[in-house]
């Protein structure tokens, strides 16, 4: 197999990786600081897609970008509600109970979506500017939108890195992820910080949902089809580690791409094999937050 084809696949895989990173970054931050394994994270991603569709079609003249921004806000509001009302009650409980709680969110949000939007598939058009592709040597096409997703992933990664490492708030989140007691010792309003971080995570999921719109059938249940992959990424990367989520997203995305090229019949098992291999060698993920 020629080198240019491999590089081509590498870039194709990267666009999937970056989409995965957009979703998993939010989950890993929430899981790291709040210590809540939010099973409904995929559902927030779904809501991002639905809201984008809704704003795109209900506001006359709304552009894709405007629709996504509005959708992200809407998902953020829902995230704030989920954190503020039910989740706050169970911070001290076991992971199992927290999982069950967030599972109940999935049930409710899925059915509410079904009630308002129906069960038919919806489809978000690729914005005209990005609908085309570049033709590469060898008569290969590189879709503009795939490159756009890569760009979005890198920009979000950079902004999160800035936010987490260069601002006071980010440093608090870092400190809190490593050591919960430290936050209250520093006199921080912990509940407010938690709400803020949960909303940030929800916003990232919503953004990913909106950006995934042009690549996917928007449908109820699209969150459940991706959530295990996202959890796998967070765990492989190390809970709470942004760098870990970034690297693990690339691993999963590229593994999926090259796996399909070289070992297509194992496609269903790729992610799980990766999880097993990583956890057996690094029981706390690639990048452990101390």
């Amino acid at each position, binding site marked *: 197999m020629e080198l240019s*084809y491999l590089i*081509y*696949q590498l870039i*194709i*895989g990267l*666009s*999937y990786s970056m989409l995965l990173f957009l979703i998993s970054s939010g989950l890993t931050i929430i899981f790291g600081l709040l210590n809540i394994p939010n099973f409904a994270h995929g559902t927030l991603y779904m809501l991002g897609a639905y809201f984008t569709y809704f704003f795109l079609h209900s506001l006359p003249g709304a552009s894709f970008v405007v629709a996504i921004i509005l959708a992200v806000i809407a998902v953020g509001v829902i995230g704030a509600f989920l954190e503020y009302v039910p989740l706050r009650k169970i911070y001290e409980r076991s992971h199992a109970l927290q999982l069950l709680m967030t599972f109940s969110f999935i049930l409710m949000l*899925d*059915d509410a979506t*079904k009630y308002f939007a*129906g*069960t*038919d*598939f*919806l*489809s978000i*058009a*690729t914005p005209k500017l990005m*609908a*085309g*592709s570049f033709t590469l040597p060898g*008569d*290969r*096409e590189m*879709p*503009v*939108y*795939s490159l756009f997703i890569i760009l979005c992933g890198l920009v979000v990664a950079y902004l999160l890195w800035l936010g987490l490492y260069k601002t006071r708030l980010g440093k608090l989140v870092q400190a809190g992820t490593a050591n919960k007691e430290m936050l209250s010792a520093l006199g921080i309003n912990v509940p407010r910080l938690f709400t803020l971080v949960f909303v940030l995570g929800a916003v990232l999921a919503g953004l990913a949902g909106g950006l995934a719109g*042009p*690549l*996917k*059938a928007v*449908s*109820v*249940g*699209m969150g*459940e*089809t*991706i959530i295990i*992959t996202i959890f796998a990424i967070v765990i492989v990367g190390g809970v709470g580690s942004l760098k870990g989520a970034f690297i693990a997203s690339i691993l999963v*995305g590229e593994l*999926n*791409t*090259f*796996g*399909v*090229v070289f070992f*297509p*019949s194992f*496609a*269903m098992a790729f992610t799980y094999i990766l999880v097993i291999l990583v956890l057996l060698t690094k029981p706390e993920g690639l990048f452990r937050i101390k």
Partner: protein
Amino acid sequence: MAKKKITRRAFVKVVGSGALVAGAATFGVPTLLRASSKPIKFGQLNTTSGIMASQGVPGMRGAQIAQEIINQAGGIMGRKLELVQEDDQVKPSVGVRKFRKLVLEDKVDFVFGTNSSGVGLACVPLANEFKKIFISTSMSDKYTGSNCSPYVFRIGESTSMASKASAYCMVANEPGIKKWAGINPDYVFGHESWDFFKKGMKEKKHPVEIVKESYSPFGSQDYKPYITALLESKAEGVFTSLWTGDLINFIKQAKPFGFFDKVKAFVNNTTSFATAIGLGDQMVPFWGEARYYPFYRDTEINRKYISMYRKKFDGYPGADVGAECFATVMALKLAIEKAGTTDTPKVIAALEGLEFEVPEGKKWIRPEDHSGIDEVVLLGKFHRDSKYPFWVYDPKTYFTVPGKEIAMPLDQTGCKMAKP
């Protein structure tokens, strides 16, 4: 084995007969019969929650429309038709539990439905155990093959029919294409579809070079590696049995690669018309094969089905399963009337060889294996039509195969049915 003749007389006008029965129920029927005005109960299993709700919900709706038509016309032999609908959650274990509930608790007379063969096949042993008729609305050939039973029917197209019809259509319309590739879902249906497509090509003695065979897991998020691999194989024609969300995801991700320009023919054997509705103006030109295509037959029953569906549910009746469930309810009604009773063995006998017309067209149930056989199976190539907010088949490309021609020959079904 003697083939059963289809006589013109035997095609029953569903609506007309309904009206007749309604009249009979009110005036002509002896009091003895009228006294048993207990409703006739049909139990239905389909998926109304989760990712497969896009299939199951229209299935429920299709049956509800049939029920409304029947009851407005006076019911079945003067008895009201009652539907008991249950969500199978696409889980065979739930399907089994709900089947038992329908039979034992709700005391339904007949059971039908399912939009996944996993659930449907799980119901087969129960139908045998409870000696209840079960009519499947999912596509597996096994209902009328290795798992066939006196109590089990499948009145819609099967996987083999849909796949072979796709092959025939390609041989007829794209005879120049020799290099074929497949992208199919990585489960039984996908593998069978691809095998039957190749078989269909062989039957037509079409020289085929298979340049790529790929299978993607159900619910794949990223089809780009499959797409680039297909393009790299330089296939001229691509067959797929992806369906529902998977098909939409594939199409949306393939489009920017110029896939539908580079590949001369793309043919799909399970194009629920809901796909076209879902994609709207982002649709691409490809060959579709649907069990139900709303705009082909301008028959009274089809018009009625579409108009009632649109009025009741605000949307087009795109999904196959909707029409399939509608057809099933109608077939059962006719069989009950033909048998004059809801007694299972007699209704089985009445269903065997039944000919009827539904929105999907005219159908006949082959007695030997209980397989429904359409008068014709239709394919067409999607194009933009300003009359509709979505793409439809280009009428110039309509391609039909007589159902009997592609029905699995009786000696190949593997069905050994012991009559009850």
